[in-house]
C-alpha cells in the first residue's frame, strides 16, 4: 500500500461472552499501541445493527484501509463483517477476524489473565496479517443455460422436465435404450399401489415432447472435463442398427432366431436379439443387441456379413442397417446433474441364504416382474402357498461391509406381500405369507397405515433375522432357521418360496461417472453431498449436483423431490449467469519465476501451465513462466511448497501474511513462555477448534491458531521458518481423507511432515515438536488431547539455541531443493 496504513481494530464484548473472561479494554488499548493502528474501540455487540453501522461509518470517516474485528470465529460472522466493509466503502478482503471467543475466552474461561494475554497475541496476529492484505476481487465465472443430466431414471426425468419446461437446454444421457430406469422395473408403487409403468409412462412421453430436451439413449459418457460454466462432454452414442423410421411394428422380433433371458425383466421373460426394451419405451424404437446378434458377432469375428439378417429382410420400412456404428458426440455443459441410480445387492454374497443354489429362493426385483406378468398369458411361476420375505439382505450388515439401512425394503416387502396376497385371493387361492424383519421402518406419508392394512390382511410379521436357509433336495422346498425374538423361540419353518429383500447400493455404472468427476463418496458408498443438512443435493464441485438414489437409498417421492431440488439449484446458477468464487487462488510473482515448470505436475487439479511471460522489462523473448487457471484453481496452496524460487503464492494466505501471523504470535511472550503454532485448515481443524471452544473445553493455552485453506498450504519451508522465528512447536491439522475438498493435499502434507521431521532430527531438534493429524469435526477429546500433548512436548524440550534457529532456513533449503536456485 505504500505509505503508512490506517488500520482500525475493534474488540467485541460479545454481550459478556468475551468480556467476562478477557479484559477487552486492555486488549483494545494494546491494539491501539501497535504500528499503523489509528483507531481502536471495544463494543458490546459488533455484529448488531448498530455495531455494524458504527464500523462502516468509522471506515468512511477515517478512510480506514484495514480492519481487524476481534470477536467470534471467522466461520461464524466472517461473511457478515465482509459485507460491513463493503458498506463502508472498503474492499472486503481488507478485513480480518481475530478469533478471541471460541479460540480464547471460551476455551480458557477459567484463566482470565492468561486468556487476556492470549487475546492480545491473537489480535496482534490479525493486525500483522491485515498489514499485508491487498484488495482483491472475487473470481467471476460465467454460466450459460446448458445442463447435462446423467441418468434417465425418474430422478433424471424429473430434473429434465423441470429444467426443460423452464426453458433451459437439457441434454439427458441414458445408457439403456430407453429412459425409465429402475422405476420401470417395478410392478406397483407404495403406498398407493399405483402401477409404476402407468405413472411413469406419461412423464416419459413428456420428455420426448419437450423441445428443450435432447435425449441421448443407448449412450455412454466417455469423458467429462472442465469446470462450472465450461464443461466439455464426450458422449458415445452406441449403434442400435435401427433407424428412426422404425414403426415398432414388431415383425422383426418374430423373425429373429436368437432368444435370451431379458435382463431388464430380471430374467422372468425372454427377448430376442432385436427387441424393444419396453412397451412404452422412450424412444419407442427397436434395437439390436450386438453381443448376441448372429450377424454382428460373425462380422466381428470373421468379417463374414452374410449371416442371418432375417430381421432386415422382413422390415417393412427398411429401418434396419447393419452398417451403422457407434458415434462420438461432443457437447458443452454449464451445469451437471448426476442421477445414476442404484444397483441391488448381489444376494450370492450371502451364501447362507442359498440364492443361486436353491431354485425357490428369489430376490424381490424378480418378484416385481413376476407380478407384472401374471395373468397376461406370459410365462409365470407359481410361488406356492407359503411365502416368506427376509428383510435386510445386504443391509445393516457389518459382515458384508454394508452397515447402512436401505430405507425402502420394509415398504417394498410389505407391498409385495399385499400384492401377492391380493392376486391369489382374486383367483380364489390362499397364501400364507410371513415377513421376517428386525425393525419395520414405515416412516413416510401413508406408510404406517399401509403397513397396518397389510397386517390386517393376514400377513404375519415375525421379528427375527434368519440365520440360514436349507433345501429339501426332493421337494425343493426351503426351510428357514430363525429366532423369533418376541416369543424367544427358535423356529424352523418350511416355505414354498423365500423372497430376499435385497438392499440398494450405488450403481456400478455410476461409479465410472463418479470417478470421472472426482466426486467423493460417503462411507456407505453413495455419492456424498456437500453438506448433509444445508446442501443435500450439491457436491463439493461447483456446478455438479446429485439426485435420487445415487446420493443414497430413497423412495420415489423423495427422489422426485430431490430431483426438483437439483433443478432449482442448477437454475439458481444459470439464471444468475455467473458465479463468484473466493479469490483464494494461487498466483505467480513473475519476477521470481524462473520457468522451470516443476510445479505444474504437482497441482492435483492441473490448474498450472506454462505460458509466455509476455512483454516486460528484462523478459527475453520466449521466456515462459507459470500461469494459474483461476477457474480451476481450488486454492489448496500445495504448489507453493514445490517452488524453489518462492515464486508461487496464495491470495489471502500469502507467505508474508502467514509469517506475519507467526511473528505476531511470538512477539509478546515473556521469557520462558513457550508457543505452539497450529496451522488449522478451515473446513475441519479450525471448525473443530471452534467446536471445542463452544463446548468450553479447555486445552493448553500456549497454542496459537493460524487459519489456512488446507494443510497443504503449509510448505516445508514455512514450518522451518516458524521454528526459526522461535516457535517451540508446530501442529498441522487437516481433514480426514474422505472429507477433504482438496484432492492430494493430505498426501502432500504427510510428505511435508516427514521431510521436516527428518531435517529437525538431523539438526538435533526433537522431531516430535512437529505433529500432523487428520481431524473429523466431532473429535473434541482428541483435539484437546493432542493440543495438550504438543504443548507438553514443546514445554519439555530444551530451547533451540538462537544460532541454530537462525541457520535452519538455509540448511533446510539445501535439503528440500538440492538442485538449488537457478
Amino acid at each position: 500500500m505504500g505509505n503508512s496504513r490506517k488500520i482500525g481494530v475493534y474488540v467485541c464484548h460479545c454481550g459478556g461472552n468475551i468480556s467476562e473472561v478477557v479484559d477487552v479494554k486492555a486488549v483494545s488499548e494494546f491494539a491501539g499501541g501497535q504500528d499503523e493502528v489509528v483507531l481502536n474501540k471495544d463494543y458490546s455487540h459488533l455484529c448488531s445493527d448498530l455495531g455494524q453501522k458504527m464500523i462502516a461509518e468509522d471506515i468512511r470517516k477515517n478512510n480506514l484501509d484495514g480492519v481487524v474485528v476481534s470477536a467470534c470465529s471467522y466461520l461464524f460472522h466472517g461473511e457478515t463483517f465482509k459485507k460491513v466493509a463493503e458498506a463502508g466503502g472498503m474492499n472486503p478482503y481488507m478485513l480480518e477476524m481475530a478469533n478471541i471467543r471460541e479460540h480464547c475466552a471460551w476455551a480458557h474461561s477459567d484463566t482470565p489473565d492468561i486468556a487476556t494475554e492470549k487475546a492480545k497475541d491473537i489480535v496482534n496476529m490479525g493486525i500483522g496479517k491485515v498489514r499485508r492484505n491487498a484488495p482483491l476481487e472475487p473470481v467471476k465465472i460465467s454460466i450459460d443455460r446448458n445442463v447435462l443430466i446423467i441418468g434417465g431414471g425418474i430422478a433424471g426425468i424429473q430434473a429434465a422436465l423441470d429444467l426443460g419446461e423452464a426453458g433451459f437446454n437439457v441434454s439427458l444421457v441414458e445408457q439403456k435404450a430407453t429412459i425409465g430406469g429402475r422405476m420401470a422395473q417395478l410392478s406397483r408403487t407404495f403406498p398407493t399401489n399405483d402401477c409404476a409403468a402407468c405413472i411413469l409412462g406419461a412423464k416419459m412421453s413428456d420428455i420426448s415432447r419437450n423441445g428443450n430436451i435432447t435425449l441421448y439413449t443407448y449412450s455412454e459418457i466417455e469423458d467429462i472435463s472442465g469446470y462450472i460454466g465450461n464443461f466439455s462432454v464426450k458422449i458415445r452414442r452406441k449403434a442400435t442398427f435401427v433407424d428412426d423410421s422404425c414403426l415398432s411394428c414388431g415383425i422383426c422380433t418374430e423373425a429373429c432366431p436368437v432368444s435370451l433371458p431379458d435382463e431388464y425383466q430380471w430374467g422372468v421373460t425372454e427377448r430376442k436379439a432385436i427387441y424393444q426394451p419396453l412397451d412404452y419405451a422412450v424412444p419407442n424404437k427397436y434395437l439390436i443387441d450386438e453381443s448376441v446378434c448372429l450377424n454382428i458377432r460373425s462380422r466381428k469375428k470373421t468379417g463374414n456379413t452374410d449371416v442371418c439378417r432375417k430381421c432386415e429382410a422382413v422390415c417393412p420400412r427398411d429401418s434396419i442397417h447393419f452398417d451403422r456404428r457407434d458415434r462420438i458426440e461432443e457437447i458443452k455443459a454449464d451445469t451437471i446433474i448426476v442421477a445414476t441410480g442404484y444397483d441391488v445387492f448381489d444376494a450370492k454374497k450371502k451364501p447362507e441364504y442359498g440364492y443361486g443354489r436353491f431354485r425357490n429362493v428369489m430376490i424381490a426385483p424378480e418378484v416385481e416382474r413376476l407380478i407384472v406378468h401374471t395373468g397376461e398369458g406370459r410365462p409365470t411361476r407359481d410361488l406356492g402357498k407359503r411365502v416368506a420375505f427376509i428383510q435386510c439382505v445386504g443391509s445393516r450388515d457389518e459382515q458384508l461391509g454394508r452397515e447402512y439401512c436401505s430405507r425402502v425394503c420394509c415398504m417394498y416387502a410389505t407391498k409385495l406381500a399385499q400384492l401377492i396376497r391380493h392376486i391369489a385371493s382374486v383367483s380364489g387361492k390362499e397364501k400364507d405369507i410371513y415377513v421376517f424383519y428386525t425393525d419395520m421402518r414405515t416412516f413416510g406419508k401413508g406408510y404406517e397405515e399401509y403397513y397396518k392394512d397389510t397386517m390386517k390382511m393376514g400377513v404375519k410379521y415375525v421379528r427375527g433375522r434368519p440365520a440360514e436357509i436349507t433345501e429339501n433336495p426332493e421337494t425343493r422346498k426351503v426351510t428357514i432357521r430363525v429366532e423369533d425374538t418376541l416369543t424367544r423361540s427358535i423356529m424352523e419353518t418350511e416355505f414354498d418360496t423365500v423372497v430376499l429383500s435385497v438392499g440398494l447400493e450405488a450403481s456400478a455404472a455410476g461409479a465410472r461417472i463418479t470417478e470421472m468427476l472426482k466426486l467423493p463418496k460417503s462411507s456407505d458408498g453413495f455419492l456424498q453431498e456437500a453438506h448433509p443438512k444445508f446442501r443435500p443435493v450439491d457436491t463439493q464441485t461447483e456446478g455438479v449436483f446429485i439426485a435420487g438414489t445415487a446420493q443414497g437409498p430413497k423412495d420415489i417421492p423423495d427422489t422426485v423431490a430431490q430431483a426438483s431440488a437439483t433443478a432449482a439449484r442448477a437454475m439458481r446458477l444459470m439464471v444468475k449467469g455467473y458465479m463468484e468464487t473466493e479469490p483464494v487462488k494461487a498466483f505467480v510473482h513473475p519476477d521470481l519465476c524462473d520457468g522451470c515448470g516443476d510445479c505444474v505436475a504437482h497441482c492435483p487439479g492441473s490448474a498450472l501451465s506454462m505460458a509466455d511471460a509476455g512483454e516486460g522489462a528484462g523478459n527475453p523473448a520466449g521466456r515462459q513462466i507459470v500461469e494459474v487457471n483461476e477457474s480451476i484453481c481450488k486454492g489448496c496452496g500445495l504448489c507453493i511448497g514445490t517452488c524453489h524460487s518462492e515464486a508461487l503464492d496464495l491470495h489471502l494466505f500469502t507467505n508474508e501474511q502467514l509469517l506475519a501471523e507467526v511473528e505476531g504470535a511470538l512477539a509478546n511472550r515473556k521469557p520462558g513462555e513457550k508457543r505452539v503454532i497450529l496451522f488449522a485448515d478451515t473446513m475441519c481443524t479450525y471448525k473443530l477448534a471452534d467446536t471445542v471452544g463452544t463446548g468450553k473445553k479447555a486445552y493448553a493455552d500456549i497454542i496459537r491458531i493460524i487459519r489456512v485453506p488446507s494443510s497443504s498450504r503449509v510448505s516445508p519451508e514455512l514450518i522451518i521458518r516458524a521454528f526459526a522465528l522461535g516457535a517451540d512447536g508446530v501442529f498441522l491439522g487437516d481433514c480426514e481423507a474422505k472429507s477433504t475438498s482438496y484432492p492430494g493435499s493430505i498426501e502432500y502434507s504427510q510428505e511435508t511432515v516427514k521431510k521436516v521431521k527428518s531435517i529437525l532430527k538431523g539438526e538435533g531438534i526433537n522431531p516430535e515438536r512437529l505433529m500432523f493429524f487428520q481431524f473429523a469435526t466431532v473429535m473434541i477429546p482428541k483435539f484437546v488431547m493432542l493440543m495438550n500433548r504438543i504443548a507438553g512436548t514443546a514445554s519439555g524440550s530444551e530451547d533451540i539455541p538462537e544460532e541454530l534457529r537462525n541457520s535452519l532456513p538455509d540448511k533446510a533449503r539445501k535439503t528440500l531443493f538440492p538442485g538449488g536456485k537457478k
Partner: protein
Amino acid sequence: MAETEDSKIKIPYFPGCTLKTTAKNFESSAVKSAEKLGVEMVELPKWNCCGTVSSLASDDLMKHLAPVRDFIRVEEMNEEGVVDNEYRMLTLCSMCFNTLKQTNARVKASPEDLESVNNFMYLEKDYQGKVEVTHLFELLDEMGFDALQDKVTHSLKGLKVAPYYGCLLLRPKSVGIDNAENPSIIERFITAIGGNPVENWEARSRCCGSYHTVENKAIVVKLAKGIIENARSAGAECIITSCPLCAFNLDSRQEEIIREDSEYRPMPVFYFTQLLGLALGLDKKDLRFEDNFIDPEPLLVQKGLNI
C-alpha cells in the same frame, strides 16, 4: 519359499499334545504324506501345549503365554539355522491352528500386550512377531492342488467324501483358511486326490460339541448323529476331518450312537491325511487305520481302495 524339483520345503511343525497320544494316526499319515510331497515337517524343539482353546476374555493375557512361547521356538529355529528363513508354523490340529493364530494376531496387533508377554517370560528371548501360523490345507493349496493331483498314484476312484470343516478352520473369519459361509478348499483337496466331494452339505461347518464330550456326552452324541446323518443324506460314504476332537466326537462317539439306535449304520471317519496318504501310495502301517474307531476297511475293500 520356492520349491524346485529336488529342493524340499523345510517347515517348522507344531504337533500339539493329541497328535502324540490318541491321534498318532493323524501325525504319522501327515508326516509321511508330506515327505512324499517334498515337505519336511521339522518338529519344534521343546514345544508346549498351545492351550487348546483361545481365551476370549480381554483381560487375561496370562492365557496367551503358551502359544507365544511356541512362536519363540520358531524364531529360534531360524536363528539356529534349523530352518532357513521359514517363519511359517505348520499345524495339523484345527484347534491348535485356531488358538495359535488368534493369539498371534492379538500380540501382533497390540505392542503393549506383546511387551507385557515378553517381559513376563524374561527367561525366554523376546518374540519378534515374525511367525505366521498356517495349516496343512493352506500349504497344499499354495503348492497347488493340480501339482498334488499329479503326484497321486492311487486315486480314490470317486469315493464320496464329506469334507467336515468343523468350527475352527473357518471361524472367526479373521483366522479362517477360507470363506466361512462358502468354503471350497477341502472340496478341492478331495477332488485332487481322486475323491468325489459332497458339495454344500448343511452340517459341514456345524459344531460337533467340542469339549462338552467330557461332561455332557449326550449333547455331543446328538450333534454327532445329526452331522453324520446329514452327510449321509447328502451322499457321503465317509467323512474327513482335521481335528482330533472332532474325530473323537464323530468317530468314537458312534459307539454311543450305536448303543442308542439299533438301526444306525456306522460311517467311517478319517483324518484327511489318512486319505491323502492312501492316494499317495503310502505304506499301510503309516496310515494306522487300526487307530480309527469305526473300521474303515470294509468301505475301502468295497471301493477297491484296499492296499
